[in-house]
């Protein structure tokens, strides 16, 4: 709840191309800015229009991945995300939680994964 009310790392990064993603289940939208240096996530910012679950996950996740190598992030599974959240949401809401991660995967560079 706290993360949803006060999401961390929101905003833009100048000079980085935004990756836009849309959750087809509910219409939530996110814009992610990812700065990568030497194969590691140096900075992440995002704008998200969505529900509590998608906002909170995006916030927790953005804190988690900062400084981590891209190769590690690429290996994260849905169940790891549910662990970060403290438990899996009901089946119909799981896509809300994984949305940010799915969007982020689009932003990750393909090489080096």
């Amino acid at each position, binding site marked *: 709840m706290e993360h949803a009310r006060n999401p961390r790392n929101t905003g833009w990064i100048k000079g980085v191309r935004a990756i836009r993603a849309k959750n087809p*289940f*509910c*219409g*939530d939208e996110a814009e992610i800015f990812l700065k990568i240096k030497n194969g590691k996530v140096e900075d992440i910012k995002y704008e998200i*229009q969505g529900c*509590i679950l998608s906002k909170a996950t995006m916030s927790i996740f953005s804190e988690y991945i900062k400084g981590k190598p891209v190769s590690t992030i690429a290996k994260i599974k849905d169940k790891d995300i549910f662990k970060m959240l403290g438990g899996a949401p009901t089946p119909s809401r799981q896509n809300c939680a994984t949305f940010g991660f799915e969007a982020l995967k689009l932003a990750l560079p393909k090489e080096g994964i």
Partner: protein
Amino acid sequence: MALDSKKIRKDFPILSRKINGRALVYLDNAATTQKPKAILEKLKKHYDRAHANVHRGVYGLAEEATREFEGARKKISDFVGAKLPSEIIFTRNATEAVNLIAYSLAKKLKRGDRILTAVSEHHSNFVPWLRLSKELGLKLDIISLTLGRNFDFADFKKKLTKRTKLVAVAHVSNVSGYVYPVQKIAREAHKAGALVLVDGAQSAGHMPVDVKKIDCDFFAFSAHKMGGPSGVGALYGKKEILEKFEPFLSGGEMIREVSTKDASWNDAPWKFEAGTPNIEGAILWGEAIDYLKKIGMKNIERHEKDLFKYAFVKMRKLPFIDLMKMLDLGGRTGIISFNIKGVHAHDAATILDRYGICVRAGHHCAQPFMRELGVPATLRASFWLYNTRREIDMLISALRKVHRALA
């Protein structure tokens, strides 16, 4: 006559179950309705006594099953006021009924022809036309909405041209619950030489329907949204038009004669019904219709309108409820879409579920409509014959709690 809710609710065993320790308040009837126990009893009777494949068998049992199956077709045809049972084609659902027309109509259209539909349509009556337009180089014209998000008849007339070959509109919007003026639409469309398809998924089972009076050429509807089982729906089509249309799927039953070189087609509706149909689905649908007829479609319509007005008046008084300008009171059925200001629809629905209340949250398979409303999603409560004012009170009280907790 007011409906005897207490008595009706006893016919739907699921309504007495608990959800999260609370009485189930089922308000997602536009998605699918619950089933009266009469259809389960009918299924048992059918399986225990009268089941066989239909049409082909020459033995008595097959004839009995065929009689039940074709009897269901007659009940469905009477229910929507068709002239003949043979004007009813069984499909999987309303979506397949629309796709059947899209497929068969494709053979008759050419580049530059136009199709006219509304921005508020369910994807099932929108995406088939979008695809067809792209495939055949047709022009897809989109009717916009009035300020109150209702069907814009003036815009419809403006966009109807001599090249419009088909007008495809909903009878009742699955988002706003507005009843569209399909009779007037059909009259204008026919003057321009266009065919008219009405998506009746949200009207059949909620109000009296008379396809002859509407004078539409096609009417698509579904069993599961009116107390019947899922997996069966129907397309009504005027006999003289169906005769001129090419078959949809190919296989058994739809043929008259097949050689190694050629095949000829059965009469309508069977030429559109390749393969073994959903026999028990159709029969149970017939049973559900018997049930609805006993209660009376006019009574059901009145009951739904009463529930809608009751909910609408209460919601209008709540400053934290956004009705997104859908404020016309007349010409509506038992569907109301809304949002709690500052709360995402999915979060609200998840909390309502804790109180045993089932509402829909999302884009309701009408993304172009959502874009018009300027929201990614809405909440939607939709009523049927078994819902009560008390349930709406429970919804309103739960909405207050959601607002307090999340906004």
